[in-house]
């Protein structure tokens, strides 16, 4: 049977295909259902954001960072603002730091909800997705209450945040966590332990730790491969050193370390950790510091360059900024997790089936705007 081969078929998966999460394109060469070659083709969502960053003032660019990863724009805001603040030596009030971390963790949960929900949908389970979206709606409501926007927040500004939390906001967050921690077991019963789902995910597209490092995978994808690396703990920024949380590492729960199931489960567990972080933030929140909003009027950092990275839902989100001493950056370079995740698909997809390719894309949680910027 091994010698029996049929004519190869070239399949064009995308840029408009239901499971390419935006506009991705893959050129598949298949023998029936078996994929022989899978070439990712990026660039369909390129909007020259890096170039725009060089034309705008430092503050003016903040809304654009929302669009770098619109599923988790808070984290994108934060990464940019951290970079500018380091470049210009701006101090951030402690209360603003708390608000930043809280909105980032809320956004991490909502981003992971999309990731796990979409992954379930891509393997044919339609019901977990609305469940995930229902919870995401609640987070959106909370974030809307603090900044007025539901997707592109533009909340974290250089030197602080744009608005203080409204009255009772902390209670709303607490209420959400209480309700959400009850929903997690429900979600797990629905999909995480489902036999068919586990069979679809386990031992599919195994990424070994060495391979993950060589392809410079970051974030949950890297941790799912068994590499214990989280910037929140290993290169702490903001108030993360004060917070206790566990870094979730994949350990081959149902199959081999680094398979699709590990990537799924790492995200599910990370949401629980984010809940813990949020609880600690609510407890430690500095109520006695009223004057904290972003006061910086103009940013004119001295000439020099800086690379600052932070842990976004899709892993390391870093900004490389070069300043020539004016109010505009001379060079902006954005490092995102999805771009390197796209590269690894080319190797792991070989020998899998078409249905697996869909699962691999979803399990790596690639978001199209983050790939292309």
């Amino acid at each position, binding site marked *: 049977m091994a010698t029996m081969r049929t004519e190869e*078929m070239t*399949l064009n998966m995308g840029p408009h*295909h*239901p*499971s390419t999460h935006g506009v991705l394109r893959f050129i598949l060469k298949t023998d*029936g*259902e078996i994929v022989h070659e899978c070439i990712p083709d990026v660039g369909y969502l390129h909007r020259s954001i890096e170039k725009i960053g060089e034309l705008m003032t430092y503050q003016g660019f903040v809304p654009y960072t929302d669009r770098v990863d619109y599923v988790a724009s808070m984290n994108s805001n934060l990464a940019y603002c951290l970079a500018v603040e380091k470049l210009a030596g701006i101090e951030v009030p402690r209360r603003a730091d708390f608000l930043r971390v809280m909105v980032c963790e809320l956004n991490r949960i909502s981003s992971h909800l999309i990731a796990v929900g979409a992954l*379930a*949908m*891509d*393997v*044919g*389970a*339609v*019901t977990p*997705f*609305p*469940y995930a979206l*229902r919870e995401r709606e609640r987070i959106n409501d909370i974030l809307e209450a603090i900044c007025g926007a539901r997707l592109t927040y533009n909340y974290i500004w250089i030197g602080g945040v744009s608005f203080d939390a409204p009255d009772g906001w902390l209670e709303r967050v607490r209420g959400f966590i209480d309700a959400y921690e*009850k*929903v997690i*077991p*429900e979600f797990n*019963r*629905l*999909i995480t332990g*489902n036999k*068919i*789902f586990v*069979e*679809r995910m386990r031992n599919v597209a195994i990424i070994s730790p060495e391979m993950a490092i060589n392809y410079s995978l970051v974030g949950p994808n890297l941790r799912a491969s068994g590499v214990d690396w989280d910037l929140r703990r290993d290169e702490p920024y903001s108030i993360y050193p004060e917070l206790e949380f566990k870094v979730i590492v994949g350990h081959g729960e149902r199959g081999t370390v680094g398979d699709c199931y590990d990537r799924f489960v790492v995200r599910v567990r990370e949401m629980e950790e984010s809940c813990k972080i949020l609880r600690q933030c609510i407890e430690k929140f500095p109520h006695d510091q009223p004057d904290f909003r972003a006061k910086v009027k103009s940013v004119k950092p001295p000439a020099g360059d800086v690379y600052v990275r932070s842990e976004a839902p899709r892993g390391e989100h870093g900004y490389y900024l070069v300043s020539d001493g004016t109010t505009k950056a001379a060079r902006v370079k954005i490092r995102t997790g999805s771009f390197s995740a796209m590269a690894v698909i080319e190797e792991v997809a070989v020998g899998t*089936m*078409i*249905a*697996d390719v*869909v699962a691999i894309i979803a399990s790596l949680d690639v978001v199209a705007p983050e790939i292309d910027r």
Partner: protein
Amino acid sequence: MRALLDSLAARFGIVDPSTTLVIYLLGMVVFSGIVLLLFVAPFAGITSYVERRIAARMQSRVGPNRVGPHGVIQWLADGVKCLLKEDLIPADADHLLFRLSPYLVFIGMFGTFVVIPFGSSLVIADLDIGFFYLIAFSSLVSVGLIMAGWASNNKWSLLGGMRSAAQIVSYEIPAGMSILAVVMFAGSMSIQGVIRAQGWAPHTWLIFQNPFLFAAYFVFFTAALAEGNRTPFDIPEAESELVAGYNTEYSGMRFLLYFFAEWANLYVIGAVSAAAFMGGWQVPPQIPEVIRPIAELVTFVGKSLIGVFLAIWIRWTYPRLRVDQMMNVCWKYLVPIAFLNIVGTAVWMMLFPQGQLPAVAASIIMLVIALAILITFVRKVIANLREVGGGLSFNPFV
């Protein structure tokens, strides 16, 4: 059917043998027309609405609620919309096959209604080879699907068509084998004959006659889901993988015909499992003669709807299998189990002759076990609900 027509003919004073044949033919055409137009077509439409509402409830959404009160005539609006849409045929498609395939699927599915009964006298034709006809005729669907996949001149469609061919051909074997066990036990291949071999009381249903028939029901239901391209076996039209599978290039009414067939097929799944395993239209003998046909109709359709609901429930709960896993399930598990069921049923029939005390006792024990499983399930559901702090609401319109 024939008796009904005979009595009608006698009432109008027609006794000439040459005209009775014409009356038989006319009667069958009229009745099949009634079945198709007044039952199957609205059923398929209403099922589409019901399925969307059930799915919405399961997914904490609202579902269609705009057309008519609570959206109950949404399915009519969808039908009208699809009729009015432009009838597109891709330029490079094989025009003849492209046009032909929806009809094949439609005929293959609706032809099975010829042998599906609605009561002891309400059946278009009670064929002696009823189950055989049913299995043979529904194979026409796979021809239609392959034709659609090939004629569309689209690689996704082609993959969908290939998948459906592999799937339907494979799953016909366990489905047929499970039915064979039933046929063997009942001693008849006619659907009416199999129903008459059962009684109205649950312990006389074939599903509870012996453990092998109990297993055969689940094998049959699984295989029937696969034949009907329902989740977890909906891989021929896997929307996240193959865009829409074999019907990617179809639009308007042609597209609707496929879905018509899919929802009609849901009823066929329910009806065949009700007829073969759950006593069909059998009602208690105490029911007066006058309302008997109606009671039978209600019983049979009600039992079929259980199967329909089960299929909808499964669809909105489970993920989809991969192609190789789908084949594994069929050839490694279902086919051997189905064969075992036939052998087991045969041995059982020899060991415990029907109608004698051990056989009756066994069926009652089986019934008790099934009830125990059901009760355990309900208790688990209630415990789960309590854990997440949810409640139950039986109001269909929320």
